[in-house]
């Protein structure tokens, strides 16, 4: 009775200790009182009902009724008879309040103000948890399963709050759980009576301690390995919280984090499908590319996106966007584009021409300050329709000629080149741009170098030989690739030539379908370099060959067309792109999306793509690949730790066994541990020959193994009990032989488990004490 009371109280205490974990997601402190009352009422009801010896199945029902009364009395006493009786009317009222609380949870962001309605929802949840927990821990005597309700509670802040669970709150909950387990263990133990100590045992205390430590370490290592492996194996779980640890650089106050499907986009970059992804109507004669992403970070292998930063409330309906950076001269010319996404196309970044000024879109969208990317943290849009007003991006020739130094407002990261990039690329950039005076001229020289025929466009470039840097391979050897390689390589060379650069990804302008209407298909996905010029802002270039031999709908903007000197050129229809030297329409969006340009397929592409898919991946060298490379071996090591520990124990045993007697003991302990590994019975009450007899009878051992077993048993017996030891044969050889025979007789599965998870690393189970041996003072014998 006392045992059950203790369990009831400890269970309630464990739940209450987990309650602080909810604090971060709720503003105010009026919510915990009712929750605590619900838990306490449940526990008290449990105490009383068990004291009254109520049938166990009725206890949860009665407890639920009591909790309901408490909730009624707390929240709608005015509607209830006697202030707490849950009459139908009171229940209706309660339900109404509950529904209000649920709506509040659905509508508001964390922390949610602690209104009475919210408090009711939480208290109800806690009441249900308390009833369930009480049933599990006290009635079903499965206290360990309490981890599930507690984990459910801790999951709430994890799911809704970026900051996760407060360490102190987690510690509180863990302490409650551990105390619960301890009390449960005590109750179980006392139910068995007082344990008989194997007074003269035996196993050296040191070895015993080692076994405890090894067991603990094994469990911990397995847990860590699982925690690392499972998210890795489940793509949906690869949250960025782990990687966010590595990148604190851009963590800002109102940072909004999102993920984006670069991986699927990369697939699109090589797609030749004609499936439409969007259509748009524009008043521009020659639309420009539709950009979705700007990849600003190069890690030596891949272009990735830094963490986004946006202000505002997520409402971009008819809103002005931040000013495009770097543009000193704002042209008065505007184009308006109304874009309709296809139903199957999921976009969490909106494709639109650069630079957008004003946007009309429904739903929650944010604009990144630095890049003007428009994105959502909600579910991606499908079939969305929105209207964007864009500046005509035509730079003033005077500004370009002035060759201004980039101002402070431009982030340093656009010039960063990781150390591992081959020095030859810098020399290449220098040789290409030799003779160019201004940044703009250097950019033009770079584009021309890519488009003057030395490169071949191919959606399936040859694979890069192992060990070779894909970038240098593309630039110096194969010179075969598609937009991704062209864009990435040019952006990198531009940075080497001191021009701030990034890679834009999106779609080309697509194909005209009527007066002012255009259609963009998957095959229009494209990547291109964007270079920055102080005063002119970000300008796109087009190093990828266009037309039939390249990206079909790519266009070269006027300002980048080597044939035309000025930005004000005539606009060519962007439909069928021209090749390198194709002439571009300045204001026309064009679009083939592309991807972070990087060289062709890099070794380990799959892993890196995953990383690229994380917004705000680490920007420092090494990138996310480093994590993977380290985690998988670590996980493997964790998985083989128990087996290694077992081998170590065996090795140490034999090494320390100097004398024949010690060798006999070591062999016998090995046999004991092997039996425990194989899940065979082993009783300390059995003498060596009794063990040998039993093993011989129970298992079909071959003759050599049987003889070896008896040699081991007799050696151990004589080592223990005879004046001098009899040792025949080699103890270690016999030990091996017997182990092999036992494994064979137990079957492959048991043998495998014995190798991977040797049970002998755990402390030996205690004999169940039972009545004949339990302690009782008896009269002295006569």
């Amino acid at each position, binding site marked *: 009775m006392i045992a059950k009371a203790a369990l009831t109280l400890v269970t309630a205490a464990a739940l209450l200790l987990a309650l602080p974990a909810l604090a971060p997601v709720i503003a105010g402190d009026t919510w915990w009182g009712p929750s605590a009352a619900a838990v306490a009422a449940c526990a008290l009801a449990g105490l009383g009902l068990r004291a009254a010896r109520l049938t166990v199945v009725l206890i949860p029902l009665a407890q639920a009724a009591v909790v309901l009364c408490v909730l009624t009395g707390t929240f709608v006493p005015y509607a209830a008879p006697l202030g707490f009786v849950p009459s139908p009317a009171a229940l209706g009222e309660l339900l109404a309040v509950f529904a209000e609380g649920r709506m509040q949870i659905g509508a508001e962001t964390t922390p949610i103000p602690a209104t009475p309605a919210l408090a009711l929802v939480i208290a109800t949840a806690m009441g249900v948890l308390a009833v369930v927990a009480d049933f599990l821990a006290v009635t079903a005597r499965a206290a360990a399963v309490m981890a599930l309700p507690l984990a459910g509670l801790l999951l709430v802040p994890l799911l809704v709050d970026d900051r996760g669970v407060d360490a102190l709150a987690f510690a509180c909950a863990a302490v409650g759980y551990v105390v619960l387990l301890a009390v449960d263990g005590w109750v179980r133990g006392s139910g068995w009576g007082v344990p*008989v100590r*194997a*007074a*003269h*045992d*035996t196993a*050296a205390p040191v070895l015993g301690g080692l076994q405890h430590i090894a067991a603990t370490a094994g469990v911990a290592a397995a847990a860590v390995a699982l925690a690392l492996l499972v998210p890795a194996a489940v793509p949906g779980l690869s949250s960025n919280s782990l990687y966010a640890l590595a990148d604190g650089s851009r963590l800002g106050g109102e940072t909004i984090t999102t993920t984006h499907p670069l991986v699927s986009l990369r697939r699109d970059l090589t797609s030749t499908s004609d499936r439409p992804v969007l259509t748009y109507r524009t008043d521009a004669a020659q639309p420009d590319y539709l950009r979705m992403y700007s990849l600003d970070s190069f890690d030596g292998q891949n272009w990735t996106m830094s963490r986004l930063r946006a202000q505002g409330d997520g409402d971009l309906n008819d809103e002005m966007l931040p000013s495009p950076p770097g543009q000193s001269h704002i042209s008065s010319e505007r184009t308006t584009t109304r874009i309709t996404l296809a139903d199957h196309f999921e976009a969490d970044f909106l494709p639109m021409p650069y630079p957008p000024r004003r946007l009309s879109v429904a739903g929650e969208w944010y604009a990144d300050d630095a890049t003007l990317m428009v994105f959502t943290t909600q579910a991606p849009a499908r079939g969305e329709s929105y209207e964007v007003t864009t500046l005509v991006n035509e730079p003033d020739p005077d500004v370009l000629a002035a060759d201004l130094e980039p101002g402070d407002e431009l982030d340093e990261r656009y010039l960063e080149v990781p150390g591992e990039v081959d020095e030859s690329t810098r020399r290449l950039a220098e040789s290409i741009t030799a003779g160019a005076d201004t940044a703009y001229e250097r950019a033009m020289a770079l584009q021309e170098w890519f488009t003057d025929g030395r490169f071949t466009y191919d959606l399936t470039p040859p694979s890069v030989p192992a060990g070779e840097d894909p970038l240098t391979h593309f630039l110096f050897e194969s010179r075969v690739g598609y937009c991704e390689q062209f864009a990435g390589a040019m952006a990198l060379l531009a940075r080497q030539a001191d021009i701030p650069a990034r890679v834009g990804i999106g779609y080309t302008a697509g194909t005209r379908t009527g007066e002012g209407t255009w259609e963009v298909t998957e095959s229009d996905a494209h990547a291109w370099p964007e270079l920055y010029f102080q005063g002119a802002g970000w300008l796109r270039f087009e190093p990828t060959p266009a037309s039939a031999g390249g990206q079909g709908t790519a266009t070269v903007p006027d300002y980048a067309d080597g044939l035309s000197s000025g930005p004000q050129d005539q606009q060519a229809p962007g439909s069928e792109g021209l090749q390198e030297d194709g002439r571009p329409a300045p204001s026309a969006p064009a679009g083939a999306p592309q991807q972070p340009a990087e060289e062709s397929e890099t070794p380990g592409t799959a892993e890196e793509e995953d990383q690229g898919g994380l917004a705000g991946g680490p920007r420092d060298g090494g990138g996310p690949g480093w994590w993977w490379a380290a985690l998988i071996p670590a996980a493997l090591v964790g998985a083989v730790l128990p087996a290694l520990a077992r081998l170590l124990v065996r090795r140490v045993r034999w090494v320390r066994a100097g004398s024949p*007697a010690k060798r006999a*003991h070591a062999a016998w302990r090995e046999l004991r541990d092997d039996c425990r590994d194989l899940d065979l019975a082993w*009783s*300390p*009450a*059995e*003498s060596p*020959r*009794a063990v040998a*007899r039993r093993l011989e009878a129970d298992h079909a051992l071959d003759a050599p193994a049987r003889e070896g077993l*008896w040699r081991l048993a*007799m050696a151990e*017996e*004589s*080592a*223990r*009990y*005879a*004046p*001098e030891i*009899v040792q025949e044969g080699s103890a270690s050889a016999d030990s091996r032989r017997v182990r092999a025979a036992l494994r064979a007789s137990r079957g492959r599965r048991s043998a495998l488990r014995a190798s991977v998870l040797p049970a002998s690393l755990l402390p030996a189970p205690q*004999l169940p004490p*039972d*009545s*004949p*041996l*339990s*302690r*009782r*003072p*008896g*009269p*002295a*014998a*006569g």
Partner: protein
Amino acid sequence: MSLGTRQNTQGDGLPDGDGVIAVAERIREAIQTVIEGKPDVVRIALTVLLAEGHLLIEDIPGVGKTMLAKALGRAIDCSVQRVQFTPDLLPADITGVSVYHQDRREFEFNPGPVFANIVLGDEINRASPKTQSALLECMEEMQVSVDGETRPLERPFMVVATQNPADMEGTYPLPEAQRDRFMARIAVGYPTPQAELDMIDSHSAESPLDRLEPVASAADVRTMVDHVKTIHVAPGVRRYAVDLVTATRSSAALRLGASPRATIHLVRAARAYAALEGRHYVVPDDLQALAVPVLAHRLLPSPEARMERRAPEQVVSEIVARLPIPSPR
């Protein structure tokens, strides 16, 4: 027994160890011509003989208690006396009396039946407690005190007492203190159907007891007893013996645990048992095999155990099955 098949070759190395086995083997075979199908009972009886203990045979009438005792006495060429205990038996009928000798004008001591190597006390629980205790003094001290004079008894000296279960009619159950002096108690039990069939043949014409010839002398037995005292008992085994006895004292199922004398008896019996196996050292298996015969008759079950009909034998078996054997450091 199966243990015999696994005896350690080391034991064969001692010359008189060989002799012990040979002689003991002869005695065992001789007895087994009379008591068929009960090798365990014979083995315990021999063990007690070599350990210089006394044997209590308790069973229902007619299963061969007296036969076993007689066979044991006859197989060894030594003096055997038999006392049929009855309610009117007096102590002097056992120890002997001093009679005044008219010719020499002095008292002369007429030794009683206890002055023999093997004394058969038949149905010992039919005698009065006074007579029982007279025998028990001899058992414990190997001497007889009559008229202020102490006379030692000749070695080997072994009392083999038989008794019917206490709940039979007309019996005085032995008090605990007296039961404690017997090294072991065994029950003969019913023979198997086959053994009983054979018995019909062998017992129909003449008793097989009549054909039993002595196969060993008293001196042989003394040699064997001396050899048994040299058997090695490792510290772990001693500790195990103490653990076993201690466990009976702390068991909730027993009202009275085993005495320190029981510990001594247990180890002595284990030595003899090991010698009979041809081993020169004791192993825990010996103690396990002897725990029930040596310990059970000294124990009193607690009222709870009595209600659950758990006999002390059963409790001892459970302790043996669960008590960890001390293993080396």
